[in-house]
């Protein structure tokens, strides 16, 4: 008998309009734990990595972990695993809320979606019942209205729904899958894959429970972790300022990318900071299932109660409250576009949620377009309006046009890499493997450059958050300007964060606890006597399997590169003036520590060691 895992999955064939139950591969569950791990294993075994991301043969996997839906703190997560349309690489995109716990209570660890529907459909899962239903009437609707409509149709008010908006339907390459309206599997375009399949939503309600192997040990381990978490003042800071508390911290270090990474400090950072948001419009915190941190923000959309940014789609003229923005969103839609107006950022963020798009890629792609515009590469005849850094009007308007692929939004919908290359200036794409950078300038924080370059899903801050040692001093203090030791800590962070992603817990737990604190909770829940080293090794195994998948898809070491601006154009002003990223000093050592060849390919010995031969 399995504990922690339910032991079952749903396989959905949209082409045949069939849903069937399968037993979970128990051996894979133990080796790859769950969530990101088991999702990657199924994708690796079942799919040709060379297929087009929008081909019906691409699979879309929703995978929870063995701690999802248990009493473990922050056990709310699931991972969407597929081939990313933004990158052509494997992608693993994570979300919280309460959708994944409902899936577990309905009796399933995973859903594997295959094929393509002839007509738009949505999936309704209620315990042992699972059926595909017509979604024609929902097609074209935003996420918020879609959720409300499905609840009304089903007559089940407390079901949880993961859905796409118009951006996913229109195959915007950075479309997100949203659940519980405001939680997002945001990056790499997983929503566009769902849209290409003609799947509008998955509604779930479960009335069962998750069995744990050793309840008393689970209680003890969880309580120890809970106490540690509660005692960590940084989690208190998260409640007050959310992730947006980082805005001033990163700006003060001169590491806040501004105007498409032309600058590394934003003059208006204070105006869009967590401190300002808390003082002027924060109404309440919001937490995901089982979360004891509550980093979510519920705030007034417009500070004076007047929405100055009018759009044509729903929601039109918002005067009430909504969720967000997080640090990454406020940076991408704010500093990276030179926008210091929190009203505009908030409106753009709400639109991204409702239309179903990743705000990081949205803002970063618009920032690249703004640079093209200001350099005279594109003009108003092409864009339909002035695209100058700092324009809140351009920001809000282009978010809507992108989701709908209207006018110049159709170019932005392709992401910054394709868009800049189309206009002959691919060097203005700021990202890796086709995915736009998040909110830390890797010239000012050397380790982040290595983390971005080697992230399997393209540029990402969550795979190896070296901001922690380089800026915040945890778990050790490292000089952000130096490269020494960065390869080692990047590999360690990648392996640990991957293992964490496999458990079904939230990465923000690690503001207060480490993987060592989580390990006994996992053992008690599953009854599998993993050692701590086993758990870290599982993370390394998953990381290497993702790498193998990418190599089979045609990616090479050439894809572990940073843009020329980051390597050759020094930061022009501020505390980190004169700095470039010195990736060359770190990458070779990183490959060696990984047991990879200079071409970035895992050695036979490493594969054997990880059971991947």
């Amino acid at each position, binding site marked *: 008998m399995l504990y922690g895992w339910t032991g079952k999955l749903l396989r959905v064939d949209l082409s045949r309009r069939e849903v069937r139950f399968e037993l979970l591969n128990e051996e894979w569950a133990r080796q790859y734990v769950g969530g990101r791990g088991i999702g990657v294993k199924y994708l690796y075994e079942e799919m040709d990595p060379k297929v087009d991301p929008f081909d019906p043969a691409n699979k879309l996997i929703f995978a929870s972990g063995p701690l999802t839906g248990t009493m473990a703190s922050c056990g709310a997560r699931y991972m969407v695993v597929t081939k990313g349309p933004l990158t052509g690489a494997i992608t693993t995109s994570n979300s919280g809320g309460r959708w994944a716990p409902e899936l577990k209570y309905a009796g399933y660890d995973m859903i594997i979606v295959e094929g393509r529907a002839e007509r738009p459909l949505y999936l309704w899962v209620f315990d042992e019942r699972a059926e595909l239903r017509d979604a024609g009437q929902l097609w074209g609707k935003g996420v918020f209205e879609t959720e409300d409509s499905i609840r009304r149709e089903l007559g089940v008010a407390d079901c949880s729904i993961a859905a796409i908006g118009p951006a996913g339907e229109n195959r915007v390459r950075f479309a997100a899958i949203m659940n519980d309206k405001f939680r997002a599997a945001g990056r790499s375009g997983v929503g566009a894959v769902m849209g290409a399949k003609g799947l509008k939503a998955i509604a779930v309600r479960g009335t069962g429970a998750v069995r744990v192997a050793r309840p008393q040990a689970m209680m003890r381990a969880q309580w120890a972790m809970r106490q540690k978490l509660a005692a*960590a*003042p*940084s989690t208190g800071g998260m409640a007050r300022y959310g992730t947006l508390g980082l805005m001033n*911290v990163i700006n003060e270090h001169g590491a806040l990318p501004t105007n498409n990474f032309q600058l590394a400090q934003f003059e208006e950072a204070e105006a869009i900071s967590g401190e300002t948001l808390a003082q002027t419009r924060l109404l309440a915190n919001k937490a995901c299932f089982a979360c004891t941190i509550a980093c979510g923000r519920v705030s007034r959309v417009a500070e004076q109660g007047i929405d100055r940014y009018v759009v044509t789609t729903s929601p039109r003229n918002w005067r009430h409250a909504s969720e967000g923005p997080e640090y990454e969103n406020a940076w991408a839609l704010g500093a990276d576009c030179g926008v210091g107006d929190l009203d505009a950022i908030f409106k753009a963020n709400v639109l991204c949620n409702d239309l179903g798009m990743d705000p990081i890629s949205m803002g970063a792609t618009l920032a690249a377009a703004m640079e093209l515009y200001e350099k005279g590469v594109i003009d108003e005849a092409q864009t339909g309006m002035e695209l100058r850094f700092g324009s809140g009007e351009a920001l809000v308007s282009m978010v809507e046009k992108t989701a709908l692929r209207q006018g110049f939004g159709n170019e932005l919908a392709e992401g910054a890499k394709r868009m800049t290359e189309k206009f002959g200036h691919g060097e203005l794409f700021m990202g890796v493997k086709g995915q736009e950078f998040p909110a830390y300038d890797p010239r000012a924080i050397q380790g982040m450059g290595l983390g971005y370059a080697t992230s399997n899903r393209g540029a990402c801050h969550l795979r190896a*958050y070296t901001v922690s040692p380089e800026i915040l001093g945890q778990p050790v203090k490292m000089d952000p300007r130096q490269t020494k030791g960065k390869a080692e800590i990047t590999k360690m*962070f990648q392996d640990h964060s991957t293992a964490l992603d496999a458990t079904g817990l939230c990465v923000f737990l690690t503001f207060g606890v480490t993987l060592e604190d989580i390990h006994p909770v996992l053992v008690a829940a599953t009854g599998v006597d993993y050692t701590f080293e086993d758990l870290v090794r599982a993370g390394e195994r998953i990381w290497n399997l993702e790498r193998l998948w990418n190599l089979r898809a045609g990616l090479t070491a050439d894809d572990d590169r940073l843009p020329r601006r980051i390597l050759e154009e020094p930061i022009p002003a501020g505390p980190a003036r004169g700095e470039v990223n010195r990736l060359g000093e770190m990458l070779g050592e990183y490959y060696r520590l990984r047991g990879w060849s200079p071409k970035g390919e895992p050695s036979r010995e490493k594969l054997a060691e990880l059971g991947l031969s």
Partner: protein
Amino acid sequence: MARVRLLGGLADVAGANELEIAAAGVRELITKLAEIGGRVTASLLYDGSGGLKSPLSRDLRVLVNGRDVDFLGGEETRLEEKDRVTVFVHRGRGFPGG
């Protein structure tokens, strides 16, 4: 006079997010900051009882012109006229992403 920027909770308890403090070095600046902000501020700046003779908190981050003093002269870092000093507290015990 150094321009001092306080971030996050430290600004809340000190009652201001920007101050000007005359100090020859970082240690003196922190001592004066604790005196200005009172007991609660001192408890954030120092480990142990919060008394001014306690060592600086290991969770305290002090930047001079955007550079962490750990990579300058630590508590002994000298301050020049119009230096910009940033002070914030981060007490995370894990390491996000890991």
